[in-house]
């Protein structure tokens, strides 16, 4: 077990290093410096700025410098907003995205699993068809379409919810639902098929023969086993919430990190793009590693062979 943990940790660190290196190279392949688009400035000021941001150093020095800073948890300054660092941006905006993301996560898991369980129990009957219909539609409607539709119906037509901004619980509902649409649909399908698998197992008949109540069989025996494929979906689920937040936060003007990421793409604020990409990668790789650990603890059938199939 310990060997597995260490191997998994090392490969995660290696992956993060690759991401840092690749994004660093990408950002430095961009022709011209980050101040090239600004108005003509005196040579001396330009030199001062470049010295301030260490752009006058050779590339490998810049790289090692950056790598050292990332290891110390410093993701560098913003070129666009003087005096603001990537760390400032993250600590200011990430809590908002985190709230939204957590709510999305809960909606997707509860609604998705609930719908999937119901569909499996009523296989081939109306609740099954309805769930499958909505989950197929849900997979095909991108979050930005769902978001704008929700906004039109609930904010503009019915006037029930605020169209934009952040602050009250009402503000969270639409972005979270828009973001949860696709993962919910996917989880519903996943839960349904794994539930059907479990329901056909011999031990289900044994449980029934023992005289256990139907509710107990479903909750204790079926759902517990059907949950495992859903846990493996956590990685893609987190990725979907994360990339979805770029769009949904923009639609609903949520002052989160996803909105800022897109803004920095518009602004060509390269240090922020670089820093946030690295932050997102560390977040995802770390969470995925955590999911893998949790997964091996929950399901004792999984062999710990360190990533080999």
């Amino acid at each position: 077990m310990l060997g597995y943990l260490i191997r998994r940790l090392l490969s995660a660190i290696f992956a993060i290093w690759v991401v840092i290196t690749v994004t660093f190279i990408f950002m430095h392949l961009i022709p011209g410096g980050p101040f090239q688009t600004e108005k003509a400035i005196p040579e001396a000021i330009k030199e001062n700025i470049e010295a301030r941001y260490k752009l006058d150093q050779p590339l490998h020095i810049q790289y090692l410098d950056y790598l050292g800073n990332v290891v110390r948890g410093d993701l560098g300054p913003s070129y666009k907003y003087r005096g603001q660092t990537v760390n400032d941006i993250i600590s200011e905006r990430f809590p908002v995205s985190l709230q939204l993301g957590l709510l999305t996560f809960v909606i997707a898991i509860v609604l998705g699993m609930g719908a999937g369980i119901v569909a499996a129990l009523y296989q081939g009957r109306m609740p099954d068809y309805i769930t499958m219909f909505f989950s197929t539609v849900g997979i095909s409607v991108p979050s930005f379409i769902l978001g704008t539709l929700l906004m039109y119906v609930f904010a503009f037509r019915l006037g029930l919810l605020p169209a934009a901004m952040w602050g009250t619980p009402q503000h969270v509902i639409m972005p979270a639902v828009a973001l949860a649409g696709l993962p919910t649909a996917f989880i519903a399908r996943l839960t349904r098929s794994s539930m059907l698998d479990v329901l056909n197992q011999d031990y289900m008949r044994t449980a029934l023969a023992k005289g256990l109540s139907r509710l107990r069989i479903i909750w204790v025996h079926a759902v517990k086993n059907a949950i495992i494929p859903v846990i493996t979906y956590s990685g893609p689920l987190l990725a979907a919430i994360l990339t979805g937040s770029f769009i949904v936060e923009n639609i609903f003007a949520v002052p989160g990190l996803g909105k800022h990421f897109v803004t920095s793409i518009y602004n060509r604020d390269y240090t922020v793009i670089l820093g946030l990409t690295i932050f997102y990668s560390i977040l995802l790789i770390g969470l995925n590693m955590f999911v893998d650990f949790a997964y091996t603890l929950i399901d004792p059938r999984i062999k710990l062979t360190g990533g080999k199939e």
Partner: protein
Amino acid sequence: MQYPKELFVRLTEKDVQAEIIRPSITYWQDAWRRLKKNPVAMISLIFIVFLLLVALFGPYFSPYSYSDQDFDRQNQGPSIEHPFGTDSLGRDQLVRVMYGARISLSVGFVASLTTFIIGVIYGGISGYAGGRVDNIMMRIVDILYSIPFLLWVIMLMVLFREIFPATGGGAGLYSIFIALGLVFWLPMARIVRGQILSLKEQEFALAAQTIGAPKWKILFRHLIPNAMGPIIVTATLSIPEAIFSEAFLSFIGLGVSAPMASWGMLASDALSSLRSFPHLLMFPALAISVTLLAFNFLGDGLQDALDPRMRK
């Protein structure tokens, strides 16, 4: 040796009937037969062909071009002259949605093709070589996989935007092709590798080796054709993924540049005037969703048809 004529008996019509066996059909005929029985997949296929025709020829039948502006008719709702209405610059929305179909479908097909080429070669070599080579090649895939592909695509698009500034504000269609092609082959490589790993142990591969067929020939002539079913399913399912990604990129301002129109860009443009002119959102939104739905259904149908063992 001579056979006496008496041994030869002329068959009657009845005997001929009894001798007839079912004509043998190939794997592809069998798959096509199964696909035809799947009404949802067939409707999707018909819709996709229809969309393809509209994207190719539709704009020629329209009196307007995608950039024609008519400032007397801005933000109009659907009418006889403009069935989908007009946008804030008085451009015909129908022809813009048709051009959007061109862009979306070409992105889908090009991405699927590059996925196919890179994924099959990479996965094939990895699976066939096995051992250390396989280990290293798959570790690379694992690492690239560990952050979401859209993040890679965004990084590439940000880079291309600066390297090819000639394409204007957006990053241009070719950048999208390249960026998606560079990232989308990962799942294909994994699937092909898995298939090749099991196929190379089978007798026909051994037989080919025994008669001295060169390695590349065994891989590309014998093993990969036998893995074609899952490969085609994966390639088909990468089309909606690519179309979605293009819409996503256009929506955040990294897609094709104005005055070109892609569905994502149309939806993004409609957002600012959503309260007053919802029809501008409706048609591109419908187009994206129905197209993604059709490709997903077709992919599922192909999976059932080409890979009957996987059927639930």
